[in-house]
């Protein structure tokens, strides 16, 4: 008994001792109450439930005991019973904890309206301590009041999210976080479900009352930990770690955040290294999984992805991420039908899983099914208000269907969310280019390039080859041929053996009348891609130009000297020149040729 008492946590001791004094029952109820908690700790929920039930009966329905009974019912997934158990006693009207639990039970049973009603209705009749049962309970609640409030807000947020009231949900989460800055779930929902714009995220971080709720040291840590998870894509940047927290650097969450940054920086090799490391330590680190899968996609490691998806499905068939992995695998091997099947399974399992919607859209986009792709992206954009990617993809699809206006509008929206994302700037440049506004296009491209060059380390990732080539195109249009060449050459360094770059360089050379180089580069382009009609036609024209301009051969006068007659001089020349007796082989060949003819 003494031993067990020590095991109980400090918070509960005053409560139980209170009961001890008030209780008139001869049986030592406390012992059973402790047993209930002990069994819950040991995950023997049914045993706990049995004793909790008995305690309630023995104690004539004490509020606290009913709470525990409901708690046990919740743990054994008997949500209806649990809710009924509280509501039948009207406890949800008087006690915050019970109210929260009842609502949680409704939420778990997917009765969202019920849940909301439970939370809302009782709010009107505020807590008034008038019954015997409530007195102890209130005391127990007093200290944790804030916590209940925060939990209630969090739950409300989750309910709203489940009901697709994303605005309300975001508000509730924010409220929850304000009430308790340690409430990571609220933070996670806000950030990872992409509910906030970049500015809003910043504002949230500013407004959180770290100072009030934790000491200075702690507030630093919390703030830093949260900041590592903020928007990583719009402006890829390095993570700076203060020296006092170096030990945290190997924390898997932090590592994951690092990997994500690498991913958005297009440094897939590095990203893959980190995610592999994380998954080596924790094979199914949930935060790391989507990044690892995306990374495998980017690196085209289809075999690895196959195995990984299989493992995930075996272990977590009820999780969206497992089916997401399967869908990604099928998309990678170009089986779009199967990919869609599994991706839609992933989206039904987790309705707020944005990446699945995006990949679902991609599966249509690769087949040029623009409308369906857009539908999927639109869905994703509803789910991820704070993420610019769906908007970017919608814009792309509009661009591909030649709706330049609309495309531009969506890119601008994307730019509002992520004002410094080089991808968006690049696409805006493309739109401007298509509407022949070359100066603007150049500006956008250069902005994008600035961002990329500032953020990435020494070497640009291969992804930016298109940006450089487009810069080359735009410079060519603006008649800055030197610069255009420079950009195309840079693009070639990033992504060598690219026929498009070669053709572009050839084109610039042909515009500047450098026929020899033009011919050479068109040749290179055609060597890599034989059915390139642009290069073929250009090459034909350029070669004609070149041959019309070229001198037939070096070292001869413009005007040939008159051939002397009779020509002693030439005869002398003939005598001295080495005459190889090739006649023999010549005639031999002629005979051979005739034979083969």
């Amino acid at each position, binding site marked *: 008994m003494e031993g067990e008492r020590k095991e109980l946590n400090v918070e509960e001791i005053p409560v139980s001792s209170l009961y001890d004094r008030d209780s008139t029952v001869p049986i030592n109820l406390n012992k059973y109450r402790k047993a209930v908690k002990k069994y819950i700790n040991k995950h023997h929920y049914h045993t706990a439930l049995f004793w909790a039930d008995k305690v309630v009966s023995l104690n004539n329905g004490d509020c606290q005991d009913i709470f525990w009974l409901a708690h046990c019912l919740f743990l054994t997934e008997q949500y209806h019973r649990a809710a009924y158990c509280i509501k039948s006693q009207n406890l949800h009207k008087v006690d915050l904890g019970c109210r929260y639990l009842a609502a949680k039970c409704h939420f778990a049973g997917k009765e969202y309206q019920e849940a909301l009603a439970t939370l809302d209705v009782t709010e009107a009749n505020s807590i008034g301590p008038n019954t015997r049962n409530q007195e102890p309970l209130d005391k127990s609640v007093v200290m944790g009041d804030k916590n209940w409030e925060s939990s209630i807000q969090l739950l409300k947020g989750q309910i709203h999210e489940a009901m697709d009231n994303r605005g309300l949900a975001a508000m509730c989460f924010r409220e929850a976080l304000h009430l308790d800055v340690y409430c990571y779930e609220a933070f996670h929902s806000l950030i990872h479900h992409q509910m906030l714009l970049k500015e809003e995220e910043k504002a949230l971080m500013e407004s959180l009352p770290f100072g009030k709720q934790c000491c200075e040291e702690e507030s630093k840590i919390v703030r830093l930990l949260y900041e590592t998870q903020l928007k990583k894509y719009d402006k890829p940047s390095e993570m700076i770690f203060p020296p006092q927290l170096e030990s945290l650097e190997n924390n898997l969450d932090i590592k994951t955040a690092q990997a994500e940054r690498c991913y958005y920086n297009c440094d897939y090799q590095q990203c893959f290294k980190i995610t592999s490391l994380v998954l080596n330590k924790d094979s199914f680190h949930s935060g790391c999984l989507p990044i690892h899968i995306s990374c495998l996609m980017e690196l085209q490691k289809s075999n690895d992805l196959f195995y990984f998806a299989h493992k995930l499905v075996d272990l977590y068939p009820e999780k969206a991420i497992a089916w997401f992995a399967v869908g990604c695998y099928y998309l990678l091997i170009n089986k779009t039908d199967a990919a869609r099947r599994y991706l839609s399974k992933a989206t039904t399992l987790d309705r707020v899983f944005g990446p699945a919607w995006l990949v679902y859209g991609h599966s249509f986009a690769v087949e040029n099914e623009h409308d369906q792709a857009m539908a999927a992206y639109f869905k994703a954009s509803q789910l991820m208000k704070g993420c610019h990617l769906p908007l970017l993809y919608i814009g792309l699809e509009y661009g591909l269907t030649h709706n330049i206006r609309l495309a531009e509008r969506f890119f601008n929206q994307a730019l509002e969310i992520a004002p410094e994302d080089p991808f968006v700037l690049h696409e805006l440049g493309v739109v401007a280019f298509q509407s022949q506004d070359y100066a603007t296009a150049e500006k956008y491209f250069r902005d994008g390039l600035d961002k990329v060059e500032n953020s990435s380390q020494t070497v640009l*990732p291969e992804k930016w080859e298109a940006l450089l080539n487009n810069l080359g195109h735009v410079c060519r249009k603006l008649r800055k041929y030197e610069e255009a060449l420079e950009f195309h050459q840079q693009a070639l360094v990033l992504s060598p053996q690219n026929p498009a770059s070669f053709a572009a360089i050839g084109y610039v050379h042909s515009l500047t009348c450098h026929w020899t180089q033009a011919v050479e580069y068109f040749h290179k382009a055609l060597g890599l891609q034989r059915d390139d009609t642009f290069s073929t036609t250009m090459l034909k024209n350029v*070669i004609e130009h070149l*041959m019309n301009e070229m001198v*037939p*051969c070096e070292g001869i006068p413009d005007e040939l000297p008159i*051939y002397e*007659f009779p020509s002693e001089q030439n005869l002398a020349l*003939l005598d001295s020149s080495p005459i190889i007796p090739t006649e023999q082989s010549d005639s031999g060949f*002629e005979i051979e*040729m005739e034979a083969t003819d």
Partner: protein
Amino acid sequence: MAPISTWNLFTVKQDLLKAHYECSSRGLRQSAKWSAEMSYALSIIQIPPEEDPHFTQENPDSMKEWDKYLLAKSYFDVQEYDRAAYFSQNCVSPKTHFLHLYSRYLSGEKKKLDDMVDTVVPGEKVRNEALKPLRAELQKVHLQKSLDGYLLYLYGVILKRLQLQKQAIEVLCEAVHKEPLHWGAWLELATLIIDREMLSTLSLPNHWIKEFFLAHAYLELQLNEEALDIYTRLQEVGFLASTYLKAQVSIAYHNMREVDQAIEGFQALQKVDPYRLDNTDIFSNLLYVKEMKVELSFLAHQCCETDKYRVQTCCVIGNFYSLRSQHEKAVLYFQRALRLNPNYLSAWTLMGHEYMEMKNTQAAIQSYRQAIEVNRRDYRAWYGLGQTYEMLKMPFYCLYYYRLAQQLRPNDSRMMVALGEAYEKLDKLQEAKKCYWKAHSVGDIEGMALIKLAKLYDKLGEEEQAAAAYSDYVRDVEIRRGIEREEQSSAFRFLAGYYKKHGRLEEAYENAQKCTEYSETREEAKALLREIAQLRSMQENGAMQVEDNGSVSRGPHLQFQANNTPLGRLSPMNLTFTP
């Protein structure tokens, strides 16, 4: 740099031993082989063992990773490149690190080669997937300036494979500065040099090995005299025993079309080093040109006995079959050579020629293009491309390729004649005339330039010059005792007409007489003779009226091109083996 005659051979030998040690410990087998060969040529000089790096201790730095190094090196040696790369990752000692990256590169190359087995026809691209990541990785380190000579070499090779020539040249120059003893780096650099000007602008380290490089580069650039000069001086200073130098000298003769001297050189080389396969393909080219069937057959069998699966062997056998007009079989062997080494230049060119013989223009174009991709100074491939496009009736393309071939061999009349013909097809007669004229003046190999020039003069109505050229031609043929019936007959016919027109009846008669010797002009000649006889009698009768009958012979003259198909006269093989 000190002139060759003042070299201290002792230090040279020391350097060679060091180079061999460094290269072989890094798995750079070809460079190690070269160093060993050169060192063997200096076997008179003895290096005390304490100064030989092979017998001295490793430096302690690399000793730390000695186990890893040994493991990786062993895997490398048995061609398990992925394993070698895996066990040497994260190593810092220069050798192990090099081995790691080099293994990854070779692993990619090997996989590329394995994939190629399925795609026999050239053209389909199989790529080395390791190149791009390796480039990105090496670029990062390169920017930090912490690549040593060998890593720079690897970086340069990768850049070259990715067709980034400009960058490759810079990096390889840096590589030879840091590690001049690594012969492989020099060789890679040599393949990237386009012309003499470029060679002279490169900044190269002042090291004795530079002479070898310069000679090699000259040879590649067809600057054969310069190359020969250096090689003779090198032989004089003490490398007389070097098989490498002997082979290079023979190649120089081969390039200069000194066929006999070249064959002699190779035969001598065979006596000293009977199992040597390097450069035997060039030897076989020479035998092919001279149609020395027996010798070629012997060489083919000998190579086959030594090593069936060497590129050189395959080329020799291919040539052997080609000489026997078994072109399908020849192609088969060239393909085998290319499977063994897809960067083997001469196999690509030779295969292109075979495809030309088989009238498979698409395949021929692909082969020639591959050849050019491997080495853009291969004039035979450019010329081959010209011929293919001539067959495909794309005159501008054809002109372009001939012109490039001609630029690479400025003094080769065959290029000039081909170029002239291409111009003629495009009705650019003035340009054509210049080409023929130049071809004639640089020393005509095939004896075709003059007659073509003459015909062109005729076509342009420059009668005087045409006559001059024709008579030159006739004289020339007599000197050479050549038999070119058609050309000769038309020459005589023209001359007969010309002289008749100008009233020089003696000469006219002489030439008309000659015309009767040829069946195709016999009838015409007889008519002409009758006319001359008539004129003579008229002359004798004092009637000095000369009728302009020149136009009689004009008509048939203009048709001369019809029986002059490009392929009939200029077979591609013919060109290949008399470079």
